[in-house]
């Protein structure tokens, strides 16, 4: 976020409309290119697209037939006094109307279908791509932003593709159709009517320029209202606790007023433009009445043709207004496309090599050889070499930021090392198909993230084919069955409804069960730091015993009981392994670990004074 002016001497400025760091891309950066990139998505549905366009032609033609038929009815029917001719024409009129109805139905349905279907494909592709993107990308990108790529941005394109495209084509065709029909009727009168074109073109250009700026500003301001609102509602308890309601209200009012004035300018721009177009329509009518009227008097033109001319002129201005209204939709959609393609262009970085193999049955020996890794320019892990015996438990300890979790993530291949090799049973992880690696690995992240659905759904997350019995066994193994069975629907209880009632510890236990279901050889566990209620705490320890037995385990440990239980303790300091050994060995060595331990004992002892 760039620097913002901050008043010195007092520290106000709270709650102000903070500009979203991710503004819309500048207009007209690459709209053509983005639009072209959308075209391949329509290719699988060529047949439907073709039908849609044919139907659009039919609908437009049916719509344009009205005034022409009225003209024939006046000139050939009424003025000739021929009732049979009149009836025939009316019959044709009704038939064309019917065709228009049927064609209109199918055209509208098909174009919705194609539009929505293309967006469904785009959305699925986008989501699949997001899932594949490396963890680092997600750590840098706020969740809300990724979600809005999948929701509000898709929605913006939806408006263009589903409603806009139909309107664009039909109105465009109508415009062309009207010009052709008018020229065919009487090219001299048509040219006279077209005299207003230059003014119209000029006005439309003016509208385009002004509207672009005004709509853009409105979108930014509305985002800012949302931001201030969201933040104040989330933090309302803090605001009230500090009695800052008045200030919050003032700031909100500012954002609200900014939005109003931006919106007012869009209303002014369209308020001038659209009546202007109507005025031009009236001028066109006047031109036709004057020039056409004189020619009718000279018997150079029929009354019917003149009436048809006036009728067509109004169906000429309608499409122009409609097309201008589309402009905002078009702009928003282009901005959204730009952002979506931006995500799709991001390289997933970790992907299977073409020659990658499935992992054979493994014993679970993990080896790191001269591994270095950094998220940015600086290395967080520096030249680490490490060998973990199959079936042993290794505890990683050290201060925040020492590199414990990065080390664990490298072993889990959530990142690839910049230098060196991480291998399991001698096989370089980069040569293994990711899916087969994951099936041998159980990972328990620190925060007990559960997905919506039932407890059973969550436990069988990694193994969707697991039976209810498998789930039960896993829950039982981690000692979670007791509390799960006590829930109203047992393991089929929805975690969302009861979500708030599942304590942090209970969520942890469910995460343990989830890791247990695929029966992995290797477990990577990031121990929770948050305090859990006392009963559950003991249960978690028992669960850990059962979870880790017979498997290779790497634990980022925060609890001394876990550390003591480990076969080997690795003290991580500044990206390197500073010390390693069992608890007793390290205590005897009297190094960093012994110091840490003494600190702890002192803190525990303080309570007994």
């Amino acid at each position: 976020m760039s620097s913002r002016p901050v008043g010195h001497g007092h520290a106000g400025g709270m709650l102000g409309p903070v500009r979203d760091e991710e503004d819309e891309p500048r207009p007209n950066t690459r709209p053509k290119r983005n639009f072209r990139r959308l075209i391949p998505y329509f290719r699988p549905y060529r047949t439907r697209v073709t039908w849609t366009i044919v139907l659009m032609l039919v609908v437009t033609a049916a719509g344009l037939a009205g005034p022409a038929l009225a003209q024939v009815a006046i000139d050939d029917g009424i003025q000739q006094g021929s009732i049979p001719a009149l009836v025939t024409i009316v019959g044709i009129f009704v038939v064309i109307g019917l065709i228009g109805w049927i064609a209109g139905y199918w055209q509208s349905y098909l174009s919705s279908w194609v539009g929505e279907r293309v967006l469904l494909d785009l959305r699925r592709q986008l989501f699949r791509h997001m899932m594949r993107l490396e963890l680092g990308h997600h750590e840098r990108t706020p969740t809300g932003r990724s979600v809005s790529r999948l929701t509000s941005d898709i929605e913006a394109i939806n408006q263009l593709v589903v409603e806009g495209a139909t309107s664009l084509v039909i109105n465009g065709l109508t415009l062309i159709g009207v010009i052709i029909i008018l020229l065919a009727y009487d090219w001299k009168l048509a040219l006279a009517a077209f005299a207003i074109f230059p003014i119209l073109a000029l006005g439309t250009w003016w509208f385009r320029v002004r509207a672009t700026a005004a709509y853009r500003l409105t979108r930014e301001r509305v985002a800012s209202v949302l931001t201030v609102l969201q933040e104040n509602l989330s933090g309302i308890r803090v605001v009230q606790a500090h009695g800052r309601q008045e200030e919050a209200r003032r700031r909100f009012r500012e954002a609200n007023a900014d939005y109003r004035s931006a919106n007012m300018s869009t209303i002014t721009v369209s308020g001038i433009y659209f009546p202007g177009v109507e005025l031009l329509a009236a001028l066109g009518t006047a031109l036709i009445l004057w020039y056409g009227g004189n020619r009718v008097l000279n018997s150079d033109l029929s009354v019917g043709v003149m009436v048809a001319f006036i009728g067509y002129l109004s169906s000429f201005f309608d499409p122009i207004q409609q097309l201008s209204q589309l402009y905002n939709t078009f702009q928003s959609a282009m901005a959204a496309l730009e952002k979506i393609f931006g995500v799709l262009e991001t390289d997933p970085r970790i992907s299977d090599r073409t020659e990658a193999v499935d992992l054979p049955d493994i014993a679970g020996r993990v080896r790191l050889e001269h591994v270095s890794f950094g998220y940015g320019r600086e290395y967080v892990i520096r030249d680490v070499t490490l060998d973990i015996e199959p079936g042993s438990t290794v505890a990683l300890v050290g201060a925040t930021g020492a590199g414990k979790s990065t080390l664990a993530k490298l072993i889990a291949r959530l990142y690839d090392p910049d230098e060196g090799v991480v291998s399991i049973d001698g096989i370089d992880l980069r040569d293994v198909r990711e899916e087969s690696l994951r099936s041998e690995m159980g990972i328990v992240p620190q925060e007990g993230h559960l997905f919506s659905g039932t407890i059973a759904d969550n436990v069988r997350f990694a193994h969707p084919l697991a039976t209810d019995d498998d789930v039960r066994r896993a829950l039982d193994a981690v000692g979670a069955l007791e509390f799960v069975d006590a829930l109203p629907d047992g393991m089929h209880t929805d975690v969302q409804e009861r979500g708030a009632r599942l304590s942090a510890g209970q969520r942890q236990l469910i995460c343990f069960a989830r890791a247990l279901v695929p029966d992995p050889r290797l477990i990577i566990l990031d121990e929770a730091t948050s305090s859990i209620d006392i009963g559950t705490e003991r249960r978690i320890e028992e669960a850990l015993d059962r979870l880790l037995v017979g498997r290779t385990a790497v634990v980022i440990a925060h609890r001394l009981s876990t550390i003591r239980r480990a076969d080997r303790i690795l003290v991580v300091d500044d990206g390197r392994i500073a010390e390693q050994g069992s608890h007793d060995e390290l205590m005897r060595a009297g190094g960093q670990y012994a110091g840490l331990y003494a600190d702890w004992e002192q803190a525990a002892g303080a309570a007994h004074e």
Partner: protein
Amino acid sequence: MAALVLMACTITLPYLTRRVIDDVLNGQQQDALLPLVIAVIVVGVVRAIFALMRRIMAGYVSLAVEFDLRDMVFAHLQRLSFGYFDRMPVGQLMSRATSDLQTVRFFLGYGLIFLFMHVFTLVFVTVVLLLINVPLTILALLMGPALALVAVRSSKRTHPVLVDVQQKEADVTQTAEESIAGIRVVKAFGQEVAQADRFSVRASAEFSRSMDAARLQSFYQSLMGFLPVVGVSVVIAVGGVLTINGVLTLGEFVQFYLYLSLLVFPFRSIGMLIGNAQRAAASGQRVFEILDTEPEIVEPAVPVPLPADGGGAVHIEGVTFGYDPDRPVLRDINLDIPAGRVVAIIGATGSGKSTITQLIPRFYDPQHGRVLLDGVDVRDAALDDVRRAVGMVGQEPFLFSDTVRANIAFGRPEATDEEVFLAARRAQADSFIRALPEGYDTVVGERGFTLSGGQRQRIAIARAFLVDPRVLVLDEATASVDASTEREISRALQQVMEGRTTIIIAHRLSTISLADEIVLVDDGRIADRGTHDDLFARSPLYREIHDQGLARPDELVARDA
């Protein structure tokens, strides 16, 4: 007014066309052509001017209504009590303050005016048509009710499907949200493809429901395009015969035809506008629901000032309280905390520890009993005074997207830089703040620089310190940080606690050891209180908690990097 003139102009134009055909082209008054053409231009100009006025005025009024309503909603939300926000999710309130308000604005700004204009057009045009020819008018207007009926029916049938589409869209959003928030889990279990399939299922469900909606909308819209064709055919056929028989003049026929086309749009729109009105009414109701909610916590008209020299003595007398009055969380609590005392409250999750502290700054009112701060019932004092007197530091402190400086000075915006720096130093936060990219001017919070849990915690402590409260509540303030950070924070706390009443809620022994006295809470009651030694000697419950959770060697205090 503008709308009336506008309508009059629109209606005059076909009349002028008729005059041209009947009077001029039939050869009677050839020299009237020029004046009539000028009249068309004049009417066009007048219409344009009034259309501009109408658009700008309607826009202005509707925006003003939207602005005022949103402002009122926000101001009212600021006054509502904690209990309200416990019940109402933020997303729910957001949608009321945004999309519901917009629905109301659209109806008030455009819908109402159009409804008025359309009704006016209908009445006026009908009268004109009747003047030209009564039977033909009746025939032609038969399409009107049919159109309106179809429009009403369309909105009735389509609306529930559209609501369902919205619901399916919400499911898609939810799946997207939790998959991205839980991306570590997805990746850890190699479920990227499976998760994408789950997303696909939701997205496809939304697609197929959208298609149901599209089918309905396509049907009704094309039908509404067809019905006017029937009306116009009838007019051409019957009107044509009447003209041939000399009942109508050619000009009258053309005028009739042009007027009829003026009616198509209003008929079609009225149905839609009725649907809009219903939706706006529903939205309006949701907005007014907020405005009609009375704040549960109300300040007394004449507040009693807190004694100036009060040291923060807290008396809780016979307090019974439940967030849901039928399910009390606290039962008949009596607790006396003398000024300057440091008290730790311990007990199992859900025993009511935090709830006790929430009553002191009057975030909630108890159902029975009373809470006194320095001898004054908190219900008799000004809210601002009470809240200023109690500082709270919670487990996950909320920081605003603003500078570090502004976040620290949140409770006292008029504080000088020196005071802010001092508070930060006391909270052991000064050094890490100065190491941030822009020091105290670094923007933090949701849309700013990401701070660690321990850093956020220390900023919250500085924020509480700057207000200089009489009573400081630390509610699991160190629970979500790792052990090494905890020690930093404990040091900060010791500094800040000096000279004020402090209530600590914690699980960790190292934090509890800061207290003079321990209060043991069990199932909404105070089970016992005393020093660690007293309790250890006489309370089996305390010994159990102590043995299980507090005294065991299960924590490691790591040296700072």
